[in-house]
């Protein structure tokens, strides 16, 4: 059933879409540890609205893959209770826009119970959901919510940008003793990539230089990594050599890797879909100017969604950062 199961036993790589890679990663986690549970709305017989949990209920049974009532706070709150008794629930929320009814349980309960219990209660809960825009959806289906969670102590926030990371990061997230907000770039679900089956290339909380370059660092994550790689390829034609760093983990942030890159390029642009004001890019800019004050040849620029709610989908391509806007910012930065 799974493309991985049908792989030759000594195969070390395979090609999968991000959605299938996540599915394979969860299958591996379910098989490895009977305490791992998948839990969410429509994740069972339907396999989730994006089919990321497809077939898993059939394979592992209704006791391991549970459809929940339609209530996000209840879903997260009961997952916390199960984790308090040693289970490792992997909660799927159907869309980014539906995390908010569960926001109290995520930020005041899930994030804080370890601290509240002075280190005693361990909550290995993964809250995974598709995020970001670009797929032509209706309202509340295209939100980039990473800043809310990255600002909340007690949570970790990670996001894969490609199938290999999807496959490994979901397994690493499930193995993490702390709550993980696992953000899946929905517009990349169907993009294919090579998955290394033997070992992960990176720790869960490591940033990765996905394209080396010398002139300027593009800092990005999730859906924007592809956009930045495309921008870098386009810039190359104009003789500009851009480095691209995939942040991968917004909290904790692997600032060392990012700083290493910028020390070397002296210029940086943060690219994200989320709105700019008080958005995730602000933290990167604030740190870079603080830590690398004498290094920077130009200010850290931000290319982001505008400071409006996500627009109707026919307008989204103008709202989302794209190659042109990234390249315009590169010009702006290089002009300093």
């Amino acid at each position: 059933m799974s493309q991985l199961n049908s792989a030759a036993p000594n195969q070390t790589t395979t090609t999968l879409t991000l959605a299938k890679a996540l599915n394979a990663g969860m299958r591996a986690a379910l098989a490895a540890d009977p305490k791992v549970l998948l839990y969410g709305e429509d994740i069972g017989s339907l396999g989730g609205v994006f089919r990321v949990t497809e077939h898993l209920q059939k394979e592992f049974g209704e006791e391991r893959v549970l459809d929940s009532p339609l209530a996000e706070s209840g879903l997260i709150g009961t997952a916390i209770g199960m984790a308090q008794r040693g289970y490792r629930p992997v909660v799927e929320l159907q869309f980014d826009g539906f995390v908010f009814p569960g926001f109290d349980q995520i930020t005041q309960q899930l994030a804080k119970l370890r601290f509240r219990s002075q280190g005693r209660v361990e909550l290995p809960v993964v809250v995974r959901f598709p995020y970001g825009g670009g797929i032509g959806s209706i309202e509340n289906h295209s939100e980039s919510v990473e800043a809310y969670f990255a600002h909340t102590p007690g949570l970790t926030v990670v996001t894969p940008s490609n199938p290999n990371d999807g496959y490994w990061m979901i397994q690493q997230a499930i193995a993490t003793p702390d709550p993980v907000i696992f953000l899946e770039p929905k517009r990349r679900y169907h993009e294919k990539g090579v998955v290394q089956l033997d070992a992960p290339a990176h720790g869960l909380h490591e940033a990765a230089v996905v394209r080396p370059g010398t002139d300027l660092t593009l800092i990005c994550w999730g859906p924007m990594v592809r956009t930045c790689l495309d921008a870098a390829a386009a810039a190359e034609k104009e003789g500009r050599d851009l480095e691209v760093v995939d942040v991968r983990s917004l909290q904790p942030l692997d600032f060392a890797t990012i700083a290493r890159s910028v020390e070397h390029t002296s210029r940086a642009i943060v690219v994200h879909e989320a709105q700019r004001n008080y958005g995730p890019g602000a933290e990167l800019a604030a740190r870079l100017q603080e830590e690398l004050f004498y290094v920077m040849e130009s200010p850290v620029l931000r290319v982001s969604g505008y400071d409006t709610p996500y627009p109707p989908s026919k307008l989204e391509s103008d709202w989302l950062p794209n190659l042109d806007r990234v390249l315009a910012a590169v010009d702006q930065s290089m002009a300093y």
Partner: protein
Amino acid sequence: MNTAMSIGRPTDRPSAQPGRFQPQQPVETPLVQLLRPDGTLTSDPDFAPTLSAGQVAEMLRDMTLIRRFDTEGTALQRKGQLSLWAPLLGQEAIQVGVHAALGQHDHVFPSHREHGLAMLMGLPVERLLGIFTGQETGDWDADEVRFHHLNMVIGGHTLHGVGYAMAQQRDRQADAAADDGVSLIIHGDGAISEGDVNEAYIFAAAYQAPAVFLCVNNQWAISEPVERQSIVPLYQRAWGFGIPSVRVDGNDVLAVHAAMQWALDRARNGEGPSFIEAFTYRVGAHTTSDDPTKYRSKEETADWQIKDPLSRTETWLRSEGAWDDAQQAHLDQEAEAFGAQVRSAVNNVTTPRFEEIFDRVYAEPTPDLIAQRAQVLREVAAL
């Protein structure tokens, strides 16, 4: 830890008389039905039909047009002219029965499948389609249409409806000449599990707001059967909040109308909120992105098609001599024309200029938004 100071008694006292008490289970009320699936009338001890055959014929016409609208919606999505459609097939009687009972100042806070009701309330079809083409998000005046904006976070709108009803109540307290409108709040069988929806019951009951809850139980919330949400019939949910409730056959336009009249009257008379569960079936997919074969059988769907709301209405009207082939042919023509209008209406939806979004966030755009709009305009000019 046990050495520190505490009272600390062992907890180890098993029961002496297990499970003797059986708490009184409230008695179930039967489904209200006035028109059987086979098109014959039946009677209900509490509800009687109040409509003339002529009025019912008008409702058949409305149901037919709504169904046509829905068919066109699905077809437009297939052709790529809509990015999504949420079919209402099978739920026509609810929307028409409700509409026929509404007073001229009542306000509707809909769920995501009330397209027919929207049309009947006079919402221009372009405005609704614009949501599904991805061009608009709600370009209408809700005060005027009395059909409020669609909210995609399941359940959130129910509280708005209760607040609106509180305001209606308050208006009348302040000014006896204020309108007599009440609020109709529609949600599904899945939505009933959201905290917000339960809080909506709480606030409505606490303030005795002039609100009516209509729970459209179409048996499914995407792939989840109603049993995943509740182990008791949904109309019973209202009991625990002190809200009178009733379950009606949602495919029986007469029953829906009669129950809705009762509930709207209660609200209008200052008797507080009521709850109606309309028992029906989502014959189509959840949306055009859904694949129901993954989670339910064709037989189940076929069984429900026998209970079709339109055919039973037509059968009854014919048996009354209030409907004939000529009328049906005329209606089919009308529906055909309506379908054509819908297909052309979708082309009338225009995409706003991108820079308009900056003016819709606040009454006055902030300095940031002004700057961002200017930047966008510069970029456009540069192209």
